[in-house]
């Protein structure tokens, strides 16, 4: 077999789920010794394809060849035995086990085949592999003690320990800091340098550019193109992804009209989940028609701040006023009635009721209006849901589809449709585009800007600086529970310094 021989080949793979054609005659091949990116928006069929390649799903039609041999996997185990290993977004590790025990668990060749288990031999091997591939991890550590980045290393080590020839990584950088991501890319280069194959799934253009040799773009379940990464520009990849030419440069509103303060927060103190003080004396005003952004590294109190303003979390001290009305602490209904909309960070856990149909989710906050005594007016709710589906272009099989069957972008559209339904004065959007694909990000940004145009005060909390620079009229930085005002709006250096804890005038 030559160095650039084909390692994995998929021919005309088709997979249907109820109401969705997830993969439509997809052709795909990855060579030995290359990092091959699978690029596409959420819902384009990347995950389905990778699950088929790794044995979790079986294709309805089509053929997979591994090193030229046709194969058919009946379970992830079959795939692992054939040398195809997937690193999932949600790790498949036993949290209470040590690193070494987790590796033994999947081992069918070496130490794991014996009746008696002896972790020490495996521990030595883990150390050796860790050094070679820059994946340092203590083999005796228990998984629950490890950071998310370390857990990912364990997953990759596991694949290498099982002598995988093909590694599939599903959005591996979603859980990593930028530095960790860079280290991961180096590791991946090491892995392919030995003739292995890495299939790298992502919807982030810059990552794909940084790490891959070739890229296959998926759109709406079809493979639309395979190109050599070096020959492709981000713009060309983006347009392949979303099927139209797309301005990567972001929207910037020219006319920021600042009306009277619609959100006024004074001396706000909030307790975090573990009893520590997460928000320390925050003062904040948002005017009507203004987009105020809060930047910062996650975990500096942004979530607690957003939840306290929205009434989801009680505050220990301070006042929150929406359009002049003081809100009671820990009363989300009062906040809603005062005209406050909340797009929470955890959209599936907090933003929607995952097992309820779309109809119910759209009406979650407004079902008390227009009911007949204790009875719901189901037909009217359904009509309103249909209207929301049309107006917000929510891609769903219908109003009866359960919320958790939708993709992330469509769930976010659903949340926005609900929050915009009443008379909105203030909108709190916490990481509203995290994990969304380019098209959905654009839609969400559009809705935020439209809201501001209509005079709504928008408080945007985000870790994505590009997003903040594109949308915000004013930028604040949150660090260890305190807010700092950014003096010069476009000064990246100042923002970065504040994010790292530099002192500045308090707003």
């Amino acid at each position, binding site marked *: 077999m030559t160095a650039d021989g084909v390692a994995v080949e998929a021919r005309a793979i088709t997979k249907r*789920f109820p109401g969705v054609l997830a993969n439509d005659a997809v052709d795909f091949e990855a060579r030995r010794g290359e990092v091959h990116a699978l690029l596409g928006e959420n819902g384009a069929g990347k995950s389905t394809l990778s699950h088929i390649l790794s044995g*979790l*799903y079986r294709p309805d039609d089509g053929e997979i060849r591994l090193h030229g041999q046709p194969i058919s996997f009946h*379970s*992830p*185990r079959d795939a*692992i*035995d054939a040398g195809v290993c997937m690193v999932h977004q949600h790790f*498949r*590790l*036993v*949290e*209470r*086990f040590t690193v070494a*025990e*987790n590796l*033994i*668990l*999947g081992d*069918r060749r070496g130490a*794991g*085949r*014996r*009746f*008696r*288990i002896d972790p020490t031999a495996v521990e030595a091997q883990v150390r050796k592999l860790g050094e070679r591939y820059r994946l340092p991890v203590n083999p005796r550590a228990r998984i629950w003690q490890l950071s998310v980045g370390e857990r990912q290393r364990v997953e990759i080590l596991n694949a290498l320990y099982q002598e995988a020839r093909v590694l599939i990584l599903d959005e591996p950088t979603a859980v990593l800091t930028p530095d960790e991501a860079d280290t991961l890319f180096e590791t991946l280069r090491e892995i392919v340098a030995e003739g292995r194959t890495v299939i790298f799934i992502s919807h982030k253009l810059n990552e794909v550019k940084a790490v891959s040799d070739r890229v296959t773009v998926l759109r709406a379940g079809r493979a639309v193109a395979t190109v050599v990464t070096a020959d492709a520009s981000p713009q060309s990849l983006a347009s392949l992804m979303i099927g139209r030419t797309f301005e990567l440069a972001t929207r910037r509103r020219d006319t920021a009209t600042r009306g009277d303060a619609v959100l006024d927060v004074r001396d706000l103190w909030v307790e975090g989940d573990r009893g520590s003080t997460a928000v320390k004396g925050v003062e904040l005003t948002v005017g009507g028609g203004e987009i105020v952004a809060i930047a910062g590294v996650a975990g500096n109190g942004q979530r607690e701040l957003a939840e306290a303003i929205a009434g989801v979390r009680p505050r220990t001290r301070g006042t929150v006023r929406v359009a002049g009305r003081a809100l009671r602490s820990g009363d989300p209904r009062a906040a809603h009635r005062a005209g406050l909309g909340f797009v929470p960070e955890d959209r599936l856990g907090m933003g929607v009721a995952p097992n309820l149909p779309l109809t119910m989710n759209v009406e979650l906050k407004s079902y008390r209006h227009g009911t007949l005594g204790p009875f719901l007016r189901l037909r009217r709710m359904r009509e309103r849901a249909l209207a929301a589906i049309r107006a917000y272009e929510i891609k769903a099989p219908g109003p009866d589809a359960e919320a958790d069957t939708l993709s992330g972008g469509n769930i976010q559209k659903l949340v926005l449709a609900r929050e915009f339904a009443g008379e909105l004065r203030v909108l709190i959007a916490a990481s509203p585009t995290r994990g969304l694909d380019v098209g959905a990000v654009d839609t969400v940004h559009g809705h935020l800007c439209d809201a501001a145009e209509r005079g709504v005060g928008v408080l945007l909390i985000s870790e994505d600086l590009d997003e903040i620079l594109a949308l915000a009229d004013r930028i604040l930085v949150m660090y260890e529970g305190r807010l700092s005002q950014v003096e010069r709006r476009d000064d990246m250096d100042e923002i970065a310094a504040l994010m790292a804890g530099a002192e500045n005038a308090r707003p």
Partner: protein
Amino acid sequence: MNNSLVVALIASGVAYGTPLLFGALGELLAERSGVLNLGVEGMMLVGAVMGFWTVQRVHGGSALALVLAIVVAAVAGTAMAAIHAFLVITLRASQIVSGLALTIFAGAAGLSSYLGNDLNLSGLPASHAFHPVFPNSMQSWPIVGPIVFGQNPLVYASWVCVIAVAFYLARTRPGLNLRAVGEAPGAADAMGIDVVKYRYAHTLAGGAFAGIAGATVTLAITPQWVSGITGGAGWIAIALVIFAFWRPELCLVGAYFFGAMQALAPELQARNISLGPTELWTNSLPYAATVIVLVVVSSRGARRRLGAPAALGVPYVREEA
């Protein structure tokens, strides 16, 4: 010295604790695979009546009859556990409902009583029973005599079982697989471990242990059959597993502790020591302790801290669409 209350309490505690220990070991195996079995009490009763029935019917040597009785009791417990396993693993029924239903079905007013009456077992002394095996001279050694050498063979068998289960869990490949199945069935499945097979195997093994636990009551502790003879020992066994943080060696300690509490009332009576209405509080002591332990450790946070298998009580559904 061997007649002192402390030595006598420990010696009887070991004897009375043995059915609890067998029951707890079985429950531990099932729970480590992620299956909560609240049917232990019912399985013990069925094992107790079937074991007793066997010694009454087998004509031949005492050893043969007793070994056969243990086997029959284990099979009876396994059969009961098979119902539970099918309902909760294959059909994914509620583990709590299924376990409770089995205990009611087989309990003092159900199957075990019916069998006892139908086979005319009530009130008869056992034809064969387990007795201490070491010579009297050894049994009269100070302290260790009654506690270690004065026990029946089932006690020694339970010690072997504790060591075997502990070794199995900590040091063997199937034991590792079992723990993975109870902690993270999704991960175990992805690694090619048959979750359903492991859950069935260990639920059935748990039933066998419960059956043997029942036979220990009717063939060693009180060699007779009376309806409802286990008197809630199955529930104590379930509490014990939690009390022992899902570790077999601690099950042994806990079982003897509860056993000693059960032995307290008869031992005090034997010494004519009266502490007011003795029966009222000594007899209820093990149950009161059980309730307290269960309440204290049943909060979700406490369970996690204590080492409950993360997937305990959760049916496994593969995510394949």
